[in-house]
């Protein structure tokens, strides 16, 4: 079968500087005004990595301040209480809105999705570019908020504190409001692309599972983010005008704010994890040399998570003042939403079973994902049980839970996808040995940082607290050291990835032997992706089982 559609790379020949999307057109303006989804993906990639760095530095500052109840480490006094509140808020806001939510969809998804579908671009390329600039406009306003004094409400902006504190809440709210539209337009673009731009011969159930994940994510982006927009608008207007919707002293209801906020923010966490699962669904079959087990189950479970994920938001508000009826309903639905996620884990494991597994860096991250997401997801179910949540809510148990799913899940999957598609995006191979070392450092450091936090939370250590009882100091200190190990792993990754860019193009067109369409063209790709419109002639995971063919 004619997999290779463009000029093949022959091993043994010297690397040739082939015409590709990086080399032409040339010039800064050709990048800033590009409508090429690959270039837009690169610009997003650089942006989200920059915000990951900023958010990560804030995280390191938090952990340094919590090393000891005296807030001293190595003889230095770290953050004071007011600044601490602002730093953990900024860490949350930047990581959630400026890093994680755009990371996989806007950076990797933009690059890979059209190619996987055999398309030349997304449905609305100019809207894609607009999304990028809208993202940066929102980010700019968020930075104004940071330099004008920061925000100390926590990333959840609960009223009435957020409507009365003197910090730069309005700037931050408007920044996120605008950045939200970037997310909406990306989702809109992906839905239209997946509906209308699949290659000839590629039905819904012939496309890669990454596309199903992107579709489910896009559904959530389109349906949930507008409610965030109106929430932030209402909160800002409440600040400025005291309209009385969320402020009990004026007759309003603070729990209503939480309903508004979490109606978006719960699907938001699925917007964060589903793309990560989508990447894992791509990596596992390739590095097991085996077709995915249960394609339809994984596809439907992505949609299932997206839909049921809209019904569980009240589980963030079990002790906030909802009615008994509401908490019981939300708790029940929370147990249900765990099911589609579990289905995926079983399918990945079944794919690996009797596969021919090779443990390159992408696969190390994918396996890490399965382990860490399992822990994170299961602890979410603990929190969904009302009787447990009364004790565990607003403790470090919750902090550990969401870091296990967001960092141990999404960030790990993002790194896996970044390594998996690095040869395609850049035309270079990264240093595999360093990749494996960094993956190990990230895995070990992550568990060292966050596993003690489950224990602390179970023992009652509250979240967001600046001061804590001396009995928690050993675990806090352990957690801080763990954060250094993560930092080491991530900086090592940054180092060898950047170093790889200084080499000439040395990556084969298809280093991993993948069967999806992005691998059937040159690395890096042409601006128009394919020389000839590809036709889907085989499935995305048509590996032959061990021992046959």
């Amino acid at each position, binding site marked *: 079968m004619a997999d290779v559609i463009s000029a093949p790379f022959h091993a043994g020949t010297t690397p040739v500087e082939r015409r590709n999307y990086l080399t032409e057109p040339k010039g800064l303006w050709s990048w800033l005004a590009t409508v090429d989804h690959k270039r837009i993906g690169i610009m997003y990639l650089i942006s989200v990595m920059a915000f990951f760095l900023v958010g990560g530095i804030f995280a390191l500052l938090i952990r340094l301040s919590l090393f000891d109840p005296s807030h001293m480490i190595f003889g230095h006094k770290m953050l004071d209480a007011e600044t601490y509140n602002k730093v953990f808020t900024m860490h949350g806001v930047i990581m959630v809105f400026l890093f994680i939510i755009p990371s996989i969809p806007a950076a990797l998804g933009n690059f890979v999705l059209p190619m996987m579908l055999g398309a030349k671009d997304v449905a609305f390329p100019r809207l894609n570019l607009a999304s990028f600039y809208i993202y940066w406009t929102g980010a700019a306003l968020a930075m104004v908020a940071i330099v004008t004094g920061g925000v100390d409400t926590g990333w959840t902006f609960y009223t009435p504190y957020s409507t009365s504190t003197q910090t730069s809440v309005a700037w931050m709210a408007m920044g996120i409001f605008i950045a939200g539209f970037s997310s909406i337009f990306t989702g809109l673009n992906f839905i239209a692309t997946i*509906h209308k731009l699949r290659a000839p011969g590629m039905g819904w159930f012939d496309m890669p599972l990454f596309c199903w994940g992107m579709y489910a994510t896009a559904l959530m982006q389109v349906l949930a983010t507008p409610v965030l927009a109106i929430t932030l608008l209402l909160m800002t207007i409440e600040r400025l005008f005291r309209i009385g919707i969320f402020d009990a*002293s004026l007759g309003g209801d603070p729990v209503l704010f939480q*309903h508004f906020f979490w109606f978006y923010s719960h699907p938001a966490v699925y917007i964060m994890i589903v793309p990560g699962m989508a990447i894992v669904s791509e990596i596992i079959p390739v590095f097991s040399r085996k077709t995915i087990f249960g394609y339809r189950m994984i596809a439907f479970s992505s949609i299932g998570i997206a839909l049921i994920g809209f019904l569980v*938001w009240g589980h963030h508000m079990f002790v906030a003042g909802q*009615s008994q009826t509401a908490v019981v309903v939300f708790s029940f639905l929370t147990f249900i939403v765990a099911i589609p996620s579990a289905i995926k884990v079983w399918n990945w494991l079944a794919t690996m079973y009797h596969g021919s597994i090779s443990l390159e860096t992408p696969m190390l991250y994918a396996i890490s994902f399965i382990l860490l997401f399992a822990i994170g997801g299961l602890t979410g179910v603990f929190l969904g049980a009302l009787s447990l949540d009364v004790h565990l809510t607003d403790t470090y148990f919750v902090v550990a839970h969401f870091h296990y799913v967001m960092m141990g899940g999404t960030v790990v999957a993002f790194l896996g996808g970044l390594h998996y598609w690095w040869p395609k995006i850049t035309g270079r191979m990264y240093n595999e040995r360093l990749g494996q070392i960094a993956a190990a450092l990230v895995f070990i450091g992550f568990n060292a940082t966050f596993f003690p936090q489950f224990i602390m939370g179970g023992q009652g250590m509250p979240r967001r607290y600046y001061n804590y009882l001396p009995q928690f100091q050993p675990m806090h200190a352990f957690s801080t050291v763990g954060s250094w190990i993560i930092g080491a792993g991530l900086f090592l990754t940054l180092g060898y990835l950047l170093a790889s860019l200084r080499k000439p193009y040395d990556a084969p067109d298809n280093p991993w032997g993948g069967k999806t369409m992005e691998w059937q063209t040159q690395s890096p790709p042409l601006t128009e992706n394919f020389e000839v419109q590809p036709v889907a002639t085989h499935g995305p995971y048509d590996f032959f089982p061990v021992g046959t063919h």
Partner: protein
Amino acid sequence: MSDHTTILENTQAAGHGSEEAHAHGPRNPVRLYTLILTCLLILTGLTVLVAQFDFGDWNVFAAMIIATIKASLVALFFMHLLHDKGMNAIILCTALVFLGLFLSFDFMDSTTRFEITPANGAAPAGSDFHRPKNLGVPFGGAKNVKPPAEAPK
């Protein structure tokens, strides 16, 4: 190669290079739209008329039903949903369903809470609310406001 030329010609021939992929649509659009506008104007009059009467708890319901009929007419005919491909209607209905979920869950919560009545016999919180005074008045204040003749009840 002449293959792609033929394909392009075929595509153009099939659709006459036009964007109307299918011939069906309203037979006499102008007449149909005029008819729909007339219905909408009549329904508007009906809305105002119905608002004159008090149906108690059904007031909002009655108004919403008429509004929904009007909105449906606009959606089906002015927005071509009746003649379009089904995907567009699915998108609209999905948005409405999720909005409905948001509304219904919020009300499920608020209607099943209970008033906390303090044990010492004081009134429930908020029942003796007095709006804070002196919050500020822009633009020099209201011009047409007469001070109340007697204290409000």
